[in-house]
């Protein structure tokens, strides 16, 4: 839960990320602000192309630059503005204070080195360890993330492991230097449902053990509901709603959030003839409407919505906020 008493660990303000394309610049992330408090899990949800992944990557400045560019905004982490750090300082930060895990565990690990080799590299990069010490620590980490026979498996190559196993290795690597913040970009999307459950449970457990904050980037509202404290809903590069998890799922304010929640196929008591839908399609980032970007698909839209873009107003008490002129009650 957000708290007014502790300072946020991460504080993003007015962040704008642009990609140059031949049709002109595209703002993948357009003026977003949010906070992440210590030990808190914040979900960033939205459909493909909404800017959630770019947000995650931008925090560590991992978007390809060029064509990407941070146009403005600040990313304050632990009192330092990451946008102002030199590339060298940023390298120190990556993998030690802030770690990241990715969607596709098959391609995210280097196929020609054993997992141990890769883990030892990370450990020795950020900690003053001998090879032997690093290896022992790596074995410990593999054990911690639930890999059976870690002493044997540490010398295996990624292709010798299953998808779930590889993702655990990624997690072990990410946590090995004791980060304060973990950015998980669709960590279970490429996995099967049953494996997904295993891995998600592991992540949540470890987050607790390691006293980390976590940003969980996902399109899966189910995953958000189960493991986040708070969530940010993105649409076309904007944050359109942010709320504590119970509020978001039970009293969604933004019509888009509501539509998204309604349209997820879920196991129901009764089979319904028609699933609720959101009309229309996501607008092209190159041709965004002037007003609210959801207006064309919104059942509540008025002329006001089409004229000016609503901004997120954060309620100082709940910490919830919505960018909508006509929020749902």
């Amino acid at each position, binding site marked *: 839960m957000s708290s007014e008493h502790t300072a946020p660990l991460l504080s993003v303000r007015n962040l704008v990320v642009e990609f140059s394309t*031949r049709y002109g610049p595209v703002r993948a992330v357009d003026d977003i602000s949010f906070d992440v408090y210590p030990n808190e899990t914040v979900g960033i949800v939205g459909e493909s192309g909404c800017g959630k992944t770019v947000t995650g990557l931008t925090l560590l400045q991992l978007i390809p630059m060029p*064509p990407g560019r941070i146009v403005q905004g600040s990313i304050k982490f632990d009192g330092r503005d990451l946008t102002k750090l030199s590339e060298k300082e940023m390298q120190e930060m990556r993998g030690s204070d802030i770690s990241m895990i990715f969607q596709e565990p098959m391609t995210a690990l280097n196929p020609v080195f054993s997992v141990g080799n890769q883990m030892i590299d990370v450990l020795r990069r950020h900690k003053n360890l001998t090879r032997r010490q690093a290896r022992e620590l790596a074995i410990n980490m593999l054990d911690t993330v639930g890999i059976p026979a870690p002493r044997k498996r540490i010398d295996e190559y990624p292709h010798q492991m299953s998808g779930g196993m590889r993702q655990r290795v990624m997690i072990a690597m990410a946590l090995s230097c004791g980060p304060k913040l973990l950015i998980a970009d669709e960590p279970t999307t490429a996995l099967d449902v049953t494996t997904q459950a295993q891995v998600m449970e592991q992540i949540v457990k470890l987050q607790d053990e390691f006293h980390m904050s976590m940003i969980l980037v996902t399109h899966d509202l189910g995953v958000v509901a189960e493991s986040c404290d708070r969530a940010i809903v993105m649409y076309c590069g904007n944050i359109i709603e942010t709320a504590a998890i119970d509020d978001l799922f039970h009293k969604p304010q933004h019509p888009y959030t509501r539509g998204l929640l309604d349209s997820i196929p879920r196991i129901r008591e009764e089979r319904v003839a028609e699933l609720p839908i959101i*009309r229309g*399609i996501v607008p*092209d980032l190159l*041709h965004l409407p002037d007003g609210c970007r959801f207006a064309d698909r919104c059942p509540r839209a008025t002329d006001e919505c089409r004229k000016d873009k609503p901004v997120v107003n954060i309620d100082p008490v709940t910490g919830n906020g919505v960018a909508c002129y006509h929020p749902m009650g």
Partner: protein
Amino acid sequence: MSSVAPEQVADQAVVDDGAAHRESIWAKAVYKLRRDRLGMIGLGVVLLYFVVAIGVWLGIWATEWGDVEGPKWAPMSAEYWFGTNIIGQDIFARAIYSTKTAFEVGLVVAVLSTIIGALLGALAGFFSGTWIDEIILWLKGVLDSIPFYLFVAAVAFALTGNPYAMHIAMVSTFWTTTGRLVRGEVIKLKNFEFVEAARAIGVPQVVIIFRHILPNTFHILLVQATIVFVAAIKSEVILSFLGLGVQDGVSWGLMIAESTQEVLAGFFNNFVWASVFLFGLVMAFNMFSDALQDALDPRKVASE
């Protein structure tokens, strides 16, 4: 559109009419190509050479390439722009005439190797893992493992006196790279669902190959054809030097071959001008080919 059920109206509303801002690989390629300055310069130069070649072909200029006109080894002058060679032929006329020879060799070899490479590559790819594939791969392996100049020599022997021995030899060996690339692409494409969809409909295999698969390899073929064109022109030079190249007429290769004796005696005109003409065309073609490759690279296209 008369009978539209109520649900359909709701449905139809979800479909926007405006085209999404995606373009075909070709539209993107043309756009990128036109913005590639070096590539466009390259294309311009190639076209210039092409016009020269057409002129020769039509008999408009350089008709006197074979005539002994002046003294031997005349220096550059208003009459003999590039001087004359050992028997007094005009080097400028010969260099111009050679442009036609180069285009002949390049075009014939590029077109034929591309066609053969496309067909055999597509067959091998579509029937990958079967004996058809095995045979084509074997043939490719065999041709790749005979040293090129030896192969040309052998073909020249077998076809003694045939002016196209060189062309035949080049086509026989140059198709293999195109074939390999097409095979790889076809193996990828044939597992695409649109090919399965065609099979599910009952489209015959031959039609699937020609209508659904091969058109999707055109970008590879185009780039490959430009590469083969350059390779053919460059090989002609060396083959002519070895005495296996162009049989009648003249080419930059023949001119350079002639010049090897001259340069040691201090007469550089033949060598320099043949080299400059050759380099100009090859360089321009390489620049164009590079730009084409960049423009048609699906990954690069996708990244934007």
